[in-house]
């Protein structure tokens, strides 16, 4: 598994706060047994209702970064939401704050979610809207976003940041390393051993 030290590319800005995962991928697209093809349905209903939605704007095709607002990805735990964004092309997300399950899903996929101040989240979105060709860089090591003449400091929680930098964001093999300790913990739990005396 590879380390994620930085993500480079153009950025697509997304106005609004509290954008839930039902809006990122409506439930009807969850009737599937594979994540393949979900990229085409990112923000499907929002795009239909709002012709000016940035995911309808071809100039943003090929963007690797998504700039958002507050509490992005709230609601349903569906990994289909970050999977659809990732399959659309998004490799990192920067915003004021993220819902925790969404953040955890992105971490497990190797997609960093970095937080910044409310003011800087607005500055970034305005910069990406003003110049759709601007290249941005999320530096996971230095915890900054640079581009369009800006340098913005961002935050990634220590454990998640270490997982990206070490390339251990796909946790399965790391968790399996402790297989003896897993069994010891299980055997120490009264409900596993049947509440014996």
């Amino acid at each position, binding site marked *: 598994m590879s380390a994620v030290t930085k993500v480079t590319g153009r950025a697509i800005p997304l106005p*609004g*706060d*509290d954008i*839930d995962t*039902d*809006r990122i991928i*409506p*439930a*009807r697209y*969850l*009737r599937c*047994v*594979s*994540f393949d093809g979900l990229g085409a349905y990112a923000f499907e*209903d929002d795009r239909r*209702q709002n012709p000016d939605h940035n995911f309808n704007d071809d100039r943003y095709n090929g963007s690797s970064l998504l700039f958002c607002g*507050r*509490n992005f990805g*709230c*609601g*349903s*735990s*569906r*990994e*289909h939401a970050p*999977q659809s964004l990732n399959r659309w092309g998004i490799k990192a997300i920067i915003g004021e*704050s993220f*819902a*925790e*399950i969404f953040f*955890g*899903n992105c971490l*497990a996929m190797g997609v960093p979610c970095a937080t910044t101040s*409310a003011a800087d989240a607005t500055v970034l979105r305005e910069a990406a809207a003003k110049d759709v060709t601007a290249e941005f860089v999320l530096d996971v090591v230095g915890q900054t976003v640079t581009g369009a003449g800006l340098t913005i400091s961002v935050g990634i929680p*220590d*454990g*998640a940041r*270490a*997982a990206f930098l*070490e390339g*251990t964001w796909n946790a*399965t093999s*790391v*968790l*399996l390393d*402790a*297989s003896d*300790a*897993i069994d010891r*913990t*299980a055997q*120490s*739990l*009264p*409900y*596993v051993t*049947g*509440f*014996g*005396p």
Partner: protein
Amino acid sequence: MPAVAISTPESIFPPFSIGGAHPRPKTSQLAIRIKTMGKTLLDKVWDAHTVRQMPNGQTQVFVGLHLIHEVTSPQAFAMLRELGLAVNYPQRTFATIDHIVPTQSQTRPFADTLAEQMTQALTDSCKEHGIQFFDLASKQQGIVHVIGPEKGLTQPGMTIACGDSHTSTHGAFGSIAFGIGTSQIRDVLATQCLAMAKPKLRRISVNGTLRPGVYAKDVILAIINKLGVKGGVGYAYEYAGSTIAAMSMEERLTICNMSIEGGARFGYINPDQVTYDYLEGRERSPKGEAFTQATKYWDSLRTDADAIPDDEITIAAEDIAPMVTWGITPDQSVAVDEPIPAAATFATEDQPLIDEAQRYMQFAAGDTLAGKPIQVAFIGSCTNGRLSDLRIAAEAVRGHKVAKGVRALAVPGSMEVARQAEAEGLPQIFREAGFEWRRAGCSMCLAMNPDKLKGDELCASSSNRNFKGRQGSPTGRTLLMSPAMVAAAALAGVVTDVREVSA
């Protein structure tokens, strides 16, 4: 604050000194003093399930109960196959189908070929890995968060994970229960563990007696209204106080269910006699002497009297009125008889969202929700699809008729809930009133099945989310409220203050 020595019931199991106990930082006198003070249930359960601190600083947490359903697990089993891994603890995972299952005819194969394909995928995976599957044929199928408690699978002091955000429901028993995504389901299947960070703890105390017509649903909607949909990010919620203590297990399940709507990944209630009375005699509960030993262990997990949460708020039960949401997030709610607030009364940065919500819902500031015509009434879901919810709604509609032009659904949360409701004659009461009595499933809460809103229908709903398009129509509109309020709205054809009906 001085540390006060308070004696707490000693456990016959001193499980919290077991290897992997989570050391608090000893960087200050304060930290040392806090350590000598009491522990919260979160501290105790977290420590007992800590396998180790991982090299990257996360905690490896053992998952005591893993629940899976048809929507978020097929891809996880596919990942497992790609890795060539087995399921580590197949006896600690249980499966059911709920999201996509139709609630009219449940004969296989389903008319919806995608739903049939997903059901078959789960059937095959369970068979391959030796996982017990509460499928339709078992007659034990239901919404995953309804069958866990009713079978006695959900117990105090467990860590519980499921690929569904409403896993927070199970916290009602004093367990640490949270939603995960598909890659994390893969991790639990392969290792029975997750890599996690421990949240902070906010205690929410509700004290006093609820007024007539006010239910657990109103309490949690009021809490979310007060703290906001992101207020719980980074926190677990501990619900406490005399109002919570007086609640039944089913009411407590409603409270914990919506923790995630307030941004808290999980919420819990300390176990007590109400919890034990519910659990005793359940199929998967400990039996005989083991049950006695279990209650002693569960008592030991309760938050110590001298434990200090990271944050604390208090709410007076008497201040809570029947609540209805007016917007597109679960914190956009108001008492049924009060006006919808103007955007100008919110912080500047929140005003665009308020405007967007009122535009989408076709409501104006100053409107009162009481009197708004509805087209659909939905009683069901993991929030309010249990027997006590159906009883309250049936009592309200007994001998009355659903208003002309209103489509009304009553959907039991599980096959077992349906059997109990049938034994009490509830389906007949609903049908005579003009409700459709359906089979167990998630139904119109999320519309991954044939139960959906059409166009911009307005739905009085006992479910948990009022997001844009949530109930299956991209322009559908949801009003969250208690089952009693849904029943009242179904009969009147308009949103109705249940206090005026019962007066």
